[in-house]
């Protein structure tokens, strides 16, 4: 299983762009990279998924370099409501082969 490493915490201010990086040096060929957001007393919620290069949806972008040993979640123009814990997941859940990072607590200040 790929071991994943994320920063424990990050602070930002409203309106700024936030980039959270996840390191996964031993990612396997078939592994996908998925990011989740979790608010207190709730289950994690899907944000974005990618395999290589760049993926963008309505809430975030995901940058994956060619060697795929890291990935960066980019949140444009954060607001107070983006204060949450963000997890990267590397692997293939359906094969029982996936690993969550320990999560990054993002605090957005006014």
């Amino acid at each position, binding site marked *: 299983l790929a071991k994943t490493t994320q920063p424990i915490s990050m602070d930002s201010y409203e309106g700024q762009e936030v980039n959270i990086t996840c390191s996964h040096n031993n990612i396997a060929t078939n592994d996908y990279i998925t990011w989740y957001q979790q608010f207190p007393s709730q289950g*994690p919620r899907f944000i974005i*998924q990618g395999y290589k290069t760049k993926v963008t949806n309505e809430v975030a972008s995901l940058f994956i370099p060619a060697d795929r040993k890291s990935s960066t979640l980019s949140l444009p123009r954060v607001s107070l409501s983006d204060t949450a814990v963000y997890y990267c997941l590397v692997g293939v859940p359906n094969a029982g082969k996936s690993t969550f990072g320990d999560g990054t607590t993002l605090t957005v200040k006014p």
Partner: protein
Amino acid sequence: DAGITQSPRHKVTETGTPVTLRCHQTENHRYMYWYRQDPGHGLRLIHYSYGVKDTDKGEVSDGYSVSRSKTEDFLLTLESATSSQTSVYFCAISESASGGASGANVLTFGAGSRLTVL
């Protein structure tokens, strides 16, 4: 939320007692998972199921068993609870994020069950 219901949502029990947590889904998903979440450890997979009566172990399966006798229900049992099993337990299902591409499944989680073992 993919119709996932976990019960009970909160439970306090004593060391050595059996505990069963239930996960119920209403959308006929094939794959179901049990995770535990502890401070400093993120989410760790306990067991997962890929169909009725088809289950497999995750990275922290010791002390836990599961059963899936019908598609909609996935049960997690602690035969003899210990204080180290105090945790928040999440059930999840997986579904395709992009129209059925293999390996691109994403997880949808239930609201969690908080278990305290005294």
